[in-house]
């Protein structure tokens, strides 16, 4: 048995981990709400009768891209929350599970970095289309 297989989190440590799990799941819900808000924003920002094609591209494009990224983030935060709950509720391999959670967290951050890059590209596209 390796050293990290042998380590078991104490009840106080589990309390901290459980708190992170709860808020991760809450953040998954908030990200889902943001997905819906971005979809709504993509639609209500557009005035089809009075707007030029440029303005429609300006409003709908970034909204849809952001909604997709938030939906993916919601999915990953739900997985992180579930994995953190597993660390608390299971016995054995606690550190192995924890490191998997940190790997997942790394992926969520990468996804969010991609969202910012996409937003940057959307701004450049808007400048190219609307400028």
């Amino acid at each position, binding site marked *: 048995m390796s050293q990290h297989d042998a380590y078991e989190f*104490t009840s106080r440590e589990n309390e901290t981990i459980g708190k992170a799990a709860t808020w991760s799941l*809450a953040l998954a819900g*908030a990200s889902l709400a943001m997905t819906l808000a971005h979809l709504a924003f993509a639609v209500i920002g557009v005035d089809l009768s009075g707007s030029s094609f440029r303005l429609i591209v300006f409003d709908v494009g970034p909204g849809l891209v952001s909604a997709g990224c938030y939906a993916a983030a919601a999915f990953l935060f739900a997985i992180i929350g579930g994995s953190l709950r597993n660390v608390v509720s299971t016995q054995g391999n606690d550190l192995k599970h924890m490191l998997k959670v940190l790997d997942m967290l790394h992926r969520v*951050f990468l996804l969010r970095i991609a969202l910012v*890059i996409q937003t940057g590209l959307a701004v450049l596209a808007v400048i190219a289309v609307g400028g």
Partner: protein
Amino acid sequence: MTAQTPGGPGGFGGPRLSEGQYEFGGDENRRIERAGTSSGVWAACAIVGAVLLGVLAGLQIYLHNVRGALLLAPLLLICAVAGWLYLGTGRALKQVVTTEGNDIELLMRALDRLARAFRYEVIATGVALVLFVVLAVLTRM
């Protein structure tokens, strides 16, 4: 080169979150550091994102779409808040790797910061959504 945990065995101020004694090895440290680095990069990106959203709002105003500019404000708020919060989380995760002594305590502190960042992001998202709806309704007329 590693440093000793600041402030004695407990490190930092505030109550201890763990009594566990464990020192992470090479692969474990690499994975923790990777999560810490991506958290820091995301935080920097979120701050840049907030600036970009400001630029986007400026462009909306330039294109005579004041309503579109106002509706970007809630997202700008989330980016700015998240950027600030995750900078601290990234730093706390990196501290697990760069210091020696009581890694579990430091990991628990990093997780505590992460939980706090999640909590404030949920609150900021709620506030932003309400602000979004209010602005959408007010600017409809």
